[in-house]
C-alpha cells in the first residue's frame, strides 16, 4: 500500500535504527516519539457511533444513490461520463477538462451530496475526504505517456496524480479538511473505517466523504459514502460491514 498524501498525524518517517542518532543538540524530550505513541494508542480507542447518511455508486453503466437507480447508459466510458453529466444538467465547465478519474469522482461526489448534505452545517475545514483505488492515476498516466513521443500534453500531465480527484471535489464544494488517498489492491472497508473513525474520533473533521474511485481504460467503479456524526433519515450505521454491503450492491 502506498499513501499518496499523508493523514494528519505523521510527523516523521522512521527508518528503524540503521543509524545511531548522535545527540549534539541533546534535547530533553523527543516530542515526535511521544506523538507517535499517542497516534498508535488513539487509533485503537474508537468512539462513535457514526452514520452513513448517503451513498452513491457509479459502475457498469449504472448510477445509483442509496440503492435507487438514477441513470443507466451502456456506452463506453468517455461517452457515459459525458451523458451522465448532461443528464443531471450540471453546469461546471471545468468538468470537460478533467481526466476520467476526476470526472468519475466528481460526478459521484456531486450526486452523493446533492440531496442529503447540509453544507451550511459545516465549516470548510470540518469536511474530510479519504479515498482509495487500485489503479492510482494509471488511466491518465497511459494517455499522457502516449503523447510524450509527439508533444507531451500539459493538460493530461496535470492529472497524473490520483489525489487530484480529491482536489476537484474540494474545489467544487469548498472542502478544506484533512484528506488522504490510498492505493490498494482491493476495496478494504476495514482499513477505510479505521482511517475515517480516527479523523472523526479526534475531531479532526466533523463529516467525511470516503470510498473508492477507480478507473482503468473501460473499467470503472466508484462508490462514495457520506459519513456524519448524527443519524439523519435513512442513515445506516457506519461500519466496515455496512460499507462492504453497499460496495457489493446491497441495501437495494
Amino acid at each position: 500500500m502506498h499513501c499518496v498524501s499523508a493523514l494528519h498525524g505523521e510527523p516523521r518517517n522512521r527508518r528503524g535504527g540503521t543509524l545511531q542518532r548522535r545527540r549534539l543538540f541533546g534535547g530533553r524530550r523527543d516530542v515526535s516519539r511521544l506523538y507517535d505513541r499517542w497516534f498508535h494508542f488513539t487509533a485503537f480507542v474508537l468512539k462513535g457511533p457514526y452514520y452513513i447518511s448517503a451513498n452513491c455508486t457509479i459502475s457498469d453503466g449504472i448510477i445509483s444513490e442509496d440503492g435507487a437507480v438514477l441513470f443507466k447508459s451502456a456506452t463506453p466510458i468517455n461517452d457515459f461520463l459525458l451523458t451522465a453529466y448532461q443528464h443531471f444538467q450540471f453546469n461546471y465547465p471545468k468538468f470537460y477538462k478533467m481526466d476520467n478519474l476526476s470526472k468519475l469522482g466528481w460526478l459521484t461526489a456531486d450526486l452523493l451530496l446533492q440531496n442529503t448534505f447540509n453544507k451550511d452545517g459545516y465549516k470548510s475545514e470540518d469536511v474530510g475526504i479519504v479515498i482509495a483505488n487500485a489503479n492510482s492515476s494509471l488511466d491518465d498516466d497511459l494517455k499522457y505517456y502516449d503523447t510524450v513521443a509527439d508533444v507531451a500534453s500539459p493538460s493530461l500531465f496535470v492529472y497524473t496524480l490520483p489525489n487530484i480527484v480529491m482536489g476537484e471535489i474540494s474545489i467544487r464544494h469548498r472542502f478544506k479538511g484533512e484528506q488522504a488517498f490510498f492505493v490498494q489492491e482491493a476495496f478494504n472497508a476495514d482499513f477505510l473505517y479505521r482511517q475515517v473513525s480516527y479523523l472523526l474520533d479526534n475531531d479532526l473533521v466533523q463529516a467525511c466523504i470516503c470510498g473508492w474511485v477507480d478507473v482503468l481504460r473501460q473499467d470503472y467503479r466508484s462508490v462514495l459514502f457520506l459519513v456524519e456524526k448524527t443519524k439523519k433519515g435513512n442513515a445506516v450505521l457506519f461500519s466496515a460491514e455496512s460499507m462492504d454491503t453497499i460496495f457489493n450492491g446491497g441495501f437495494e
Partner: protein
Amino acid sequence: MSSAVYIAGVGVISAIGNDVAEHLVSFEQEKAGMDAITLFDTIHRGELPVAAVKLTTRELAEMTGLSPEISRTTQLSLVAAKEAIADAAIPDPSKWRTGLISANTVGGMDKSEDFFVDFLADNNKGKLRFIWDHECGSITETVADQLGVSDVVTTISTACSSSANSIFYAARLIKNDVLDIAIAGGADALTKFTLNGFNTLMILDKEFCKPFDEHRAGLNLGEGAGYVVLVSEKVAKTLTKVPYCKLSGYANSNDAYHQTASSPEGTGSYLAMTRALEKSGLRPLDIDYINLHGTGTPNNDSAEGTAITRVFDGKFPPMSSTKSYTGHTLGASGGIEAVFSVLAIKHGIIYPNLRFETQMEDLPLKPVTKFLKGQKVRNVMSNSFGFGGNCTSLIFSTS
C-alpha cells in the same frame, strides 16, 4: 511562550555560491548562475539552461563526509544546514530543545533515476542503495542524524512554497514552546524528473529567465539549499552575537484555482501578503524590499504582480526576483530567499532583478535593476508560491 522568534544563523548553497560569502560577491558582481546542463545526460542539454550548484555530487560528498551514493538533495541540505548552525554559534546548544524542519520536493530522485536505468532493462538489476532515500522524509532524517538533532524532525513538501512553510512552521513550534531552536528551510537537487515535468508544462525558458518582464518566457530550473536558525527569546539572550532580525510575519493561503497555475487575480498571493502584514502589525508602506516569488513564467508574474498592485496600492517598495540569479530552486527557494532577505537587512543591500528590460504592460511594477548598497532595509517581505495554489509570505524585520 516566546513572543518573538529571532534569526540567529543563515546558510545557503546555490548556483551562485557554496556559502553566504560567495553569494554576496556574486550578487554584487551581478553574476547569474545559469549554464548548460552537465549534471546528467538528457536530450535537453544545450537547449535548456539550468542553474546548477558548481560542484559535482562527489565534491559535495567530500564537503559533507557522506557517501557520494547518498542523494544530492541530502548533500546540499547538509552543507547549508551546517553553515547556518555554525553561523548561529549558539553557546551550549545541548541545553535546548532543537528541531530540524526541512523541505524538499524531489527527495532522492536523482539516485532513483540512476537506479531505473538498470532496473527497467532487467528487473533483477539496479542497485537498491540508490533508492533507499528516494522519499522526501528520508533526506531530512539523514541530515538530522548528521546534525544530532532529534527533538522534532519533520519534512514539509508543498511544492515551491515548501521551505517558506518550514520556516513558518518552525516559528510556530518556537512560539508555542515546543522548541527553543529550529533549523528551518529546504533543499532540492536538479533531476531529470523535474526538468522533464516543467518542460511538459511548457514553462521553461530556453534563454536565461526574465522575471517580471513583459517578454518573460518561463523559468530556469535551479538547485540548492537554504536554512535559517530560528531561536526563542530565551535562547536569543544567551547569544554572543546579535541576531540578524526577527521573523515578524507569516501567512499561508491557497486559491485552489488550478493544479499548476495561480488564479489570474492572484487571490492566494494577495491573501498571503495581507495576512502576513497583519500578523507582523506592519503597514504595506513599512516594507522596504520585496523578494518576489518571480519565477519568470507568464502566469506567476502577472498573478503575483496583480496581487502586489492591490496590496501596495501605488506605493511600491523596491522589489526583485533573485531567481534571475539562482534559477527556480523549487522546494529550496523559500529557504534560500529567506537567507537573502535576512542578508538584505543585515547588510543594507537590495538585489537587482537581472535582465529586466520591459515593464509588464498592464502592471505599474518595475523591479530594481542595479545592486544597491547602503540602503535602510528594516522590513523585508519574501514571497513563495507553489503549485496547487499554495502561497506563503514571510516578513523579516530588524529586531
